[in-house]
C-alpha cells in the first residue's frame, strides 16, 4: 500500500511537471490539471497498481501454491476430499478482486495529490484552484473508467498466479521459474486487458 501510494504520488508529480513544461510553450499551463487528472484516473493509477500487485501478490500466489504442491500438500488435500480450487484459488482471487479497486482508489488520490503539489510549485496553481478546475472540467466518468478495470485486472493476476502455482512440479527451481513466468504473464495480460478496455471505451465514447 505505501509503495502504491508513493509511486502514484511520484507519477502525479512527474506528469504535472512534464505537462507544465510542454504546455507552457502554448501558454496553456492551466490544462496541466486536466492532463494529470485524466491520465491518472483513466489509465495510469490503476495500471500501475495492477503491475505492482502482479509483482507483489501474483508472485506470492505462485510461490505459496507452488511450495504447497512440492510438499504434496495439494495431494494431501485431494485425498482428504478437499478441493484445492475451492480452498486455495477462489479465496485468493476473491481477495484480490476486493483489494485491487481499493488500492486503485488510493493510487488515484495520490496521483492527483502529486499533480496538485507540482502545479502549486511550478505553475502557482493553488490547491483551491486545482480542485475547482477538477470539479469543472474533469467529469467523474474518468474515475469510473479507471476503477471498473480493477476487478478484471485482479481476476487476471489471481488466476495466472494460482494457475502457475499449480503447474509446479519437481523441485524448488520450478517454483522460481514459474514465479517469474507468472509475473511476466500477469503484467502482459493486464496491459492486454487494458488495451481492450481502451478500445471498448473509445467505441462507446465513454
Amino acid at each position, binding site marked *: 500500500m505505501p509503495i502504491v501510494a508513493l509511486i502514484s504520488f511520484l507519477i502525479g508529480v512527474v506528469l504535472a511537471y512534464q505537462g507544465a513544461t510542454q504546455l507552457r510553450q502554448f501558454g496553456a499551463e492551466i490544462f496541466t490539471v486536466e492532463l494529470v487528472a485524466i491520465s491518472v484516473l483513466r489509465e495510469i493509477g490503476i495500471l500501475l497498481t495492477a503491475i505492482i500487485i502482479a509483482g507483489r501478490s501474483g508472485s506470492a500466489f505462485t510461490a505459496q501454491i507452488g*511450495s*504447497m504442491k512440492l*510438499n*504434496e*500438500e495439494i*495431494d*494431501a*488435500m*485431494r*485425498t*482428504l*476430499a*478437499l478441493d484445492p480450487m475451492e480452498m486455495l484459488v477462489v479465496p485468493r482471487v476473491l481477495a484480490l478482486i476486493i483489494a485491487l479497486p481499493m488500492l486503485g482508489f488510493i493510487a488515484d488520490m495520490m496521483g492527483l495529490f502529486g499533480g496538485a503539489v507540482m502545479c502549486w510549485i511550478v505553475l502557482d496553481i493553488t490547491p483551491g484552484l486545482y480542485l475547482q478546475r477538477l470539479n469543472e472540467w474533469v467529469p467523474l466518468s474518468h474515475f469510473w473508467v479507471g476503477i471498473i478495470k480493477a476487478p478484471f485486472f485482479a481476476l487476471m493476476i489471481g488466476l495466472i498466479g494460482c494457475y502457475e502455482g499449480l503447474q509446479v512440479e519437481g523441485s524448488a527451481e520450478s517454483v522460481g521459474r514459474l514465479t517469474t513466468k507468472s509475473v511476466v504473464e500477469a503484467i502482459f495480460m493486464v496491459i492486454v486487458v487494458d488495451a481492450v478496455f481502451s478500445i471498448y471505451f473509445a467505441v462507446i465514447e465513454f
Partner: protein
Amino acid sequence: MSAQQQGEAIIAIRGLRTGFGDTIIHDRLDLDVYRGEVLGIVGGSGTGKSVLLRTIIGLNRQLAGTIRLFGKDPETLDFAEKRAIERRWGVLFQNGALFSSLTVAQNIEVPMREHLALSEPLMDEIAAMKIAMVGLPPDAGAKYPSELSGGMRKRAGLARALALDPEIVFLDEPTAGLDPIGAAAFDALIQELRQALGLTVFMVTHDLDSLHAICDRIAVMAEKRVIVSGDMAAMLKFDHPWVRDYFHGPRGRAALSAKVTRQV
C-alpha cells in the same frame, strides 16, 4: 501369517496399467493387500512404487485394469460412495505434507471437519489424543509444521492420517530421511499402532531394517509389475538379479544380522 493371507483382500489390483504420455510405468500389475497385514513395497528407483500408491488412492488414473477397494471399484461409484471409501483410509506422504498454514492440531482436525460434524472441544480432544498416540509431546499441537523436525513432521502426518480411525494407512517412505534411531522408533510406532488398532499398512519403503522389523509381506516391483510377493524367507530364496542384489547385498546382510541379534 498364512491365516491372514487367506483373509479378506481389502485391496485387489488386477491387470493395472498406468503411464504418463508414452511412458508405461505399470503393465499387467496384480497385487492384493490383506486385512491386518503390513505390506512393504520395494523396488528400484523409477519402478513406480509411489505411482502405484497414488493410483490406489485416486490421485492418478489408470489406463487399464481394475482396483477394488474394500470390494468396490471406485470407477463405478458416485461421489458420496467414493467419499465413504476415502474415510476408511489415511495417507502419510513422504514429508508429512502437513498444511503449512495450520498448526499440527488444526491439521489433524481438517479431515474431521470435512467428513464429520463434531463440536470444536471434541475435535480438540481427539486431536490431542492422536498427538499422544503417535508419540508427540502435548505442546506439539500448537506448533506449525515448520517448527518441527523431520521425524516429528512425519509423526504429525501420521496423526492426521489416523484422524478418522482408518482401516488402512498408506505410508510413502515413512523412514526416509530419518536417522537410524528415529527410523527404528517410527517402525516401532507403526507396529504398536497396528497391534492396537488392527490397522492394515501399505508401506512404500527403501529401508531394509523396516522390512525386517515390521513387514509381514513384501512385494517387489520390477519390470513394470510386482514380480514377487511373500515373506522375507521367500524374498531371500527368490531368484531374480535385482531381488538377489537387494536382499543379499551388504546392506541386506547387515539388516538381516541386526534382526537376528535383536531376536537373540
